[in-house]
């Protein structure tokens, strides 16, 4: 039977851990609110860019812009969005697993794979496996800034146009709800936008484009790609805080359960020691009397 002091120490240490996880849960809850707000505020813009792109692309030939053109696939590039910090349950594990199995499969097909990462966890994970990321960005565990994503996106677009790779995939945790985040895979390049049917072609011609359709296309398509990445990052951020909040809530619950169990054990041990002492006294008294 463990002695009383040991149990007492354990209870004290678990209480402390519980305090920390409870505080972290509260911090995550407020960060989650902020991230969720950013995500919802982003939506009208994302939808707007999407709608504009779709309407401009009506009747456009795939050959007319490198971002639309499907090439023979020899090299594939992935961007994995993870978190900088841990203690967020299966958040990173899930997305890294999804990306790793995709990479494995592509390798089997004999494709060249390039890895890019956002967040420290993904960078460490791939570096450990001997696939050092081509580009890696960290420091996104806070507000997502459009300008920073623009830099990331521009680099990727530039490399794509220069033929460094033929397809570009995005891996991030999709935010379904506070309880559910799903690893998600999206092909960003070449752009998969539906070019519309003949019917759409005529509707698309109604617009006047100034300076010209091509000029607008040249500016809008990269923008659309960047916006897609931006929206994925804001979503991943929200998922991260949600995952952390849930993980910390579970940890807090576990710690109070453990404290209950240990308190019971402590009381039992105390009772046993009192009984033993009483037996001693009674035994002693009997010996004297």
């Amino acid at each position, binding site marked *: 039977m463990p002695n009383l002091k040991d149990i007492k120490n354990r209870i004290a240490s678990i209480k402390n851990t519980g305090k920390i996880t409870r505080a972290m849960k509260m911090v995550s809850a407020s960060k989650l609110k902020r991230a969720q707000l*950013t995500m919802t*505020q*982003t939506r*009208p*813009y994302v939808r*707007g*860019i999407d709608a*504009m792109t779709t*309407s*401009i692309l009506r009747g456009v030939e795939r050959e007319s812009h490198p971002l639309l053109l499907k090439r023979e696939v020899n090299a594939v590039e992935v961007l994995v969005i993870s978190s900088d910090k841990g203690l967020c349950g299966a958040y990173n594990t899930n997305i890294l697993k999804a990306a790793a199995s995709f990479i494995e499969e592509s390798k089997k097909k004999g494709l060249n794979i390039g890895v890019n990462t956002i967040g420290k966890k993904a960078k460490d994970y791939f570096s450990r496996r001997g696939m050092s990321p081509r580009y890696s960005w960290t420091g996104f565990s806070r507000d997502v800034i*459009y300008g920073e994503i623009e830099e990331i996106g521009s680099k990727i677009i530039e490399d794509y146009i220069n033929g460094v790779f033929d397809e570009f995939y995005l891996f991030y945790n999709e935010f379904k709800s506070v309880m559910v985040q799903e690893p998600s895979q999206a092909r960003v390049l070449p752009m998969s936008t539906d070019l519309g049917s003949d019917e759409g072609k005529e509707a698309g011609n*109604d*617009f*006047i*484009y*100034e*300076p010209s359709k091509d*000029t*607008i296309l040249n*500016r*809008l398509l990269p*923008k659309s790609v960047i*916006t897609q990445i*931006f929206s994925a990052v804001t979503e991943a951020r929200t998922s991260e805080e949600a995952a952390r909040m849930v993980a910390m809530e579970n940890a807090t619950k576990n710690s109070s359960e453990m404290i209950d169990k240990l308190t019971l054990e402590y009381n039992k041990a105390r009772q046993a020691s009192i009984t033993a002492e009483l037996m001693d006294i009674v035994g002693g008294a009997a010996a004297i009397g």
Partner: protein
Amino acid sequence: MEKVLKLNIVTPYGQVMEDEVDEVISPGTEGEFGVLPGHVPFVTTLNVGTLTYKKDGRIGRVFINSGYAEVDYNRVLILSDSAEKSEDIDLERVEAAKKRAESRLNEVRELKDAGGSIDFVRARAALTRSVIRIKTTENKR
């Protein structure tokens, strides 16, 4: 046909304004353009500049940091990297930003082939933005 325009300005950080107005004048890359209700469908790119709108005889101004405009009869949709209503612009901060950009520009100018360097282009763009922000607030009527 209705005689109002629905003006909607959206940035990655949220909707800056949504209102029914009588007229919009916007900074296009090909020069300023005006939109009245019933305008023909029209898409264009935008420069950094000031968007002006009229509503009930009053004039409102919004700073626009490039982007796109889609006009569809009675609807004007502006998708911009960032936008601020003139009354939301913090002049003190903009003045500080302008000073920063100016000193940065002077620093970069000393270097070789300044005209083409990224730093130069960035600093100049930052300066343009702050100057136009200030202009946006100055023209309050």
